[in-house]
């Protein structure tokens, strides 16, 4: 179980998700059960089969390139983390 807990810790770190020790314990047990069930997929032969990123082939249609009003400055209304018209984040280092 220790290995699973480490895997959960690593995954949570990659996902930028703080978990308590109780959560790590719970999710590490469940992960085994769910992944074992999902491993059933390995039975299915897929050699030479294309991947389906969408349900059917979509030819993406782009709209006309017409300049519009950017919403950037309005979007700042939605946060208190701002200064001089910019977002104010925590430090990078």
């Amino acid at each position, binding site marked *: 179980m220790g290995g699973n807990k480490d895997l959960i810790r690593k995954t949570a770190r990659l996902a*930028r*998700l703080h978990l308590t020790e109780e959560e790590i314990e719970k999710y590490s047990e*469940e992960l085994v059960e769910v992944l074992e069930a999902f491993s059933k997929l390995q039975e299915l032969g897929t050699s030479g089969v294309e991947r389906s990123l969408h349900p*059917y082939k979509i030819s993406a249609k782009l709209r006309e390139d017409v300049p519009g009003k950017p919403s950037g400055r309005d979007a700042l209304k939605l946060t208190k983390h701002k200064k001089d018209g910019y977002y104010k984040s925590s*430090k990078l280092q």
Partner: protein
Amino acid sequence: MKKTKETEEYFSVFIDGKPESKGKLKGLTFSFKDNICVKGIETKASSKILEGYKPLFDATAVERIRGEGGQIIGKTIQDEFGFGSFCTNTGIGIKPPKNPVDKERVTGGSSGGSAAAVKVLDNHVSIAESTGGSIANPAAFCGVIGLTPTYGLVSRHGLLDYANSLDKIGVISRNIKDAARTLSVIAGSDGKDMTCTAEKKDYEGYLGESVKGMTIGIPKEYVRGLDPEVEKGFLVTRKILEKKGVRFKDVSLRKNAEYSIPTYYVIAMCEASTNLAKYSGLRYGYTEEIENEHYDNFYSRVRGSAFGEEAKRRILLGTFARMTGYRDAYYDKALKARTILINEYKEAFKDCDAIMHPTMPILPPTFEDAKKLTPLQNYMLDLLTVGANLAGLPHISVPAKNTKLPVGVMFTADHFDEEKLIILGESLE
């Protein structure tokens, strides 16, 4: 329309409003599932992480409803970001709605608030969303109609994404006429969603057409192990259609029966974990004070305190399935399996107009019974709805007659054949 105890239970935001007298949607009020952006109205996909978020724009579906005289009366409660089958995985601090037919039981999910609102409010339609069955499932459990269109028929612009390659905006209503006229308004290409390129049909124009001569396929793998009451509802429905001249034949969805659950959940969780990466507590929604700390620490802390239990589970599983060393075995494998499963449906449609089976294999469970299920047992209950959703196929859940608790019968048609679902649904009213 007045605020009542019931509207409080099913709506996260309720706005007083009367139906308008002009437009194609005159006389109807509308609610939107809480993951669809309505300008200036709190939109949070029933998650604490988006608490207080008031979008600066309307989703395309909202804009089109407003444009045709649809009166918007609020946002409905759902499983957080759509992560659930019972509407019991609502976010932190949000109460799960109770089934209006029996308050001891769940509404189904994830669009539980939408289905319950339609059940209790007259002349009301709810715009919901399905990733793996979130329209059909609650419609079945609450005894109303749930129409999920083909992937890409209705614009996803303004939808808070769960899984981009699976999400579909659709309609929950009390009758087929309202579903058809609402779909006629919200469907059709939109320059703001590059996957929404299809032209719509005149769905209302198919009302009144006969089902005589239609062929329905029944996948034997999908009518096994049913609750006896569900089986009864299904057989009663089959008999009604037979009397109206519908022919039935056996079809096989063997591979879907075996592999659609892992295929669906791997793809849905991978896409969900990337979509949820943008909720960081910095630009909108729930936030905390920024201490003298690295940004990783701030984001992780905010996300850890505001995402609910199932959201965290899906972020973890989705992130894991995309990690180096596991990606080929899970994510890539599931994308290839999806091709095989879509082809199986396409093969079945060579011999029939639509496929029919119950929407859910069980009756709506009590809250107590739902709580006893492990996450995996929970996922397995979606067996009958995930195949059509993976393949982006249009499907409709219609209430069966003469059952003690609501039972839904689901019809699935080929891509962009929504009119067949409308004709079949109307013949059962």
